[in-house]
């Protein structure tokens, strides 16, 4: 479970979780060098032991035992961790800096002890091993372990959130010791990656092959509020612009729900031949991503373009309602409470490409396609759900020409040159396709869209599927 990796104090390590690479930055010490390793991604995909959501914390394993060992090699230290229950280690939860999420690197750094990652979410972290290993000695490498403290058994979220945030008691046993009666990872933080840090002059330590020039700009660690963050002259602020209500041209709603033994969006299985949504390039859209119930968690991953989070609401009272799981009774979620202010700042600001939908949750996002036309997908990133057809196509189309040679403006008050419910000529929205194939879908009327702050988005932007009669021959 724990991948071995050799680091070196005196330099910063930037961990790019879920991108499956590690790279080093800003070594201000004598040996400028870089080293790359790879972590497997047991936590980036869905399997039954590590699920939708994971919380990562970096722990130090103070090497008391190692100091008594004659040899400080990795092999010895790894065995001593895994082999003996009696040898307890002091486990200390460490600070690290977070400098980005999903699609964006911030110029500031957010100091934190743990972070929550849904599948497909990424976090860019900076760990200062030089500060952590000030008293390191030759021949006595120090170890750090990145652990997941929120394991889960099925797609309905972590059942038991393990206490972290500096509490060393949750790691009373070495991480990688298998339990006797049940898998250890089900009730204990999972060690994902181990760092062994050597003194720079340690002959056992790693050798570096590349010299790399690093950005010398300082990283500013802060613990500020969102308002304070907004004042910082950051990369984020320079290029980032919130999509205002008046810019939204189309509102669409997508309900993610289990159905017919598989997984559906808006009551429909994925069909690669359909264009389920056709945004116009350059126009902003608001998408209501809605959890259809059943207690499942759905990390919704949207390809092609990053999006902004507008609101994040949850109906807590609905959690107590037993979901009968039968269409068309999607829970109306009338008592939604906005909880985006309770999210950590990194979950709110900037650009994202994955929103995790917990039970009875509605996320309202805004997205503006800028670049490519053609079909792209968005899907639940729980891979079992994705494979079982919880995926939709959206197909950005080029803005129509106004006839005078200029392409159509993005002013939402100009009548739309395209029908947001109409697919490009090569594709269709699917009703007639499904019917001509001989198998009709069950009739299902969507419940009304949750109240939107967008007033001028037009009416009936979402194609309503009504029961259709088979066309007569």
């Amino acid at each position, binding site marked *: 479970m724990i991948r071995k990796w050799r680091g070196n104090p005196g330099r910063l390590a930037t961990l790019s979780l879920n991108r499956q690479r590690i790279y080093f930055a800003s070594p201000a010490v004598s040996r400028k060098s870089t080293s790359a390793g790879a972590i497997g991604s047991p936590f980036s995909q869905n399997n039954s032991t590590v699920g939708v959501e994971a919380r990562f914390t970096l722990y130090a394993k103070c090497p008391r035992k190692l100091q008594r060992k004659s040899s400080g090699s990795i092999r010895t230290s790894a065995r001593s961790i895994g082999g003996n229950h009696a040898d307890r280690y002091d486990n200390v939860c460490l600070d690290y800096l977070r400098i980005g999420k999903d699609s964006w690197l911030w110029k500031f750094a957010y100091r934190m002890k743990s972070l929550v990652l849904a599948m497909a979410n990424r976090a860019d972290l900076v760990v200062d091993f030089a500060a952590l290993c000030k008293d390191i000695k030759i021949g006595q490498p120090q170890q750090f372990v990145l652990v997941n403290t929120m394991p889960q058994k099925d797609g309905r979220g972590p059942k038991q959130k393990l206490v972290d945030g500096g509490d060393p008691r949750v790691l009373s046993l070495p991480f990688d010791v298998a339990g006797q009666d049940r898998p250890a990872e089900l009730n204990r933080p999972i060690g994902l990656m181990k760092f062994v840090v050597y003194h720079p002059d340690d002959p056992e330590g790693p050798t570096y092959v590349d010299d790399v020039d690093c950005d010398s700009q300082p990283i500013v660690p802060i613990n500020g509020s969102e308002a304070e963050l907004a004042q910082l002259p950051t990369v984020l602020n320079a290029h980032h612009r919130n999509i205002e209500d008046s810019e939204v041209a189309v509102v669409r709603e997508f309900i993610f729900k289990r159905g017919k033994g598989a997984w559906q969006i808006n009551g429909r299985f994925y*069909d690669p031949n359909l264009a389920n949504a056709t945004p116009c390039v350059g126009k902003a859209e608001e998408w209501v991503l809605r959890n259809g119930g059943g207690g499942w968690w759905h990390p919704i991953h949207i390809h092609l373009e990053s999006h902004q989070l507008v609101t994040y609401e949850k109906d807590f009272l609905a959690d107590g309602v037993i979901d009968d*799981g039968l269409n068309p009774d999607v829970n109306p979620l009338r008592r939604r409470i906005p909880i985006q202010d309770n999210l950590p700042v990194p979950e709110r600001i900037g650009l994202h490409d994955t929103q995790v939908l917990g039970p009875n949750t509605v996320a309202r996002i805004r997205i503006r396609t800028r670049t490519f036309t053609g079909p792209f997908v968005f899907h639940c990133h729980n891979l079992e759900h994705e494979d*079982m*057809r919880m995926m939709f196509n959206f197909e950005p189309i080029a803005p129509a020409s106004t006839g005078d040679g200029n392409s159509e403006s993005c002013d939402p008050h100009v009548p739309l040159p395209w029908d947001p419910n109409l697919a490009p000529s090569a594709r269709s929205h699917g009703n007639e396709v499904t019917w001509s*194939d001989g*198998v*009709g879908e*069950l009739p299902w009327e969507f419940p009304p869209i949750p109240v939107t702050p967008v007033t001028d988005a037009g009416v009936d932007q979402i194609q309503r599927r009504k029961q259709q009669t088979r066309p007569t021959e």
Partner: protein
Amino acid sequence: MAWQAILQCLTVGQNGQVTPSSSSRSDSFPNVPLVDHFGRSHRFHDDFIAPGNAVIINSMYTTCRGSCPATSAKLVELRRKLWPVFEKQLTILSFTLEPQIDTPKVLKQYAELYGVSKPSDRLCSWLFLTGTQQDIERLRHGLIFYDLNPKVDSDPTQHASLLFYGNSTTDKWAAMPSELPTQALIESIRRIAGLNFEQRYGITPDTSRKAIAQASN
């Protein structure tokens, strides 16, 4: 005495007390006794999950007015279109979710509606299976035709549109809703349940000595 010892080992293995180190997905399929619509007795794992045999499995019940008729109609089409690919190597298995109502006799009548009343030499084999309630439940859970929500789980219409397919030789298994376009289903069934290169990809690999020599260069 030797064969008795072997039999004993097998029995222990099927009870799950001895788990082989290299277990395959199909090992978890229960070996329940079932009766097909011709009245013949079968053991599910022994007879259908045999090496060299690909299967498409779905659940149904004859009184279903929801998705079962559509699924069965889809299987009629798949049965015809997959015959040139698989011939006798593919078996379609439809097991009933209401075994107390769907006796072999009832299933025979249902099968006649879809032209499965007698074996055909131009269509893939298709069997409708029933058994005791307990065995059907075991089969359903072994094949993951169930829902974690007990209310949904008790509603048979929720399980009736899924096709589960694969073979134990390659031990690849997958499930797709039967409502998908036939072409998408055929493509996926060939890729997953195909026993050889030709069945999976629709082209014959060039195994001539010249081609192998070129590939190795």
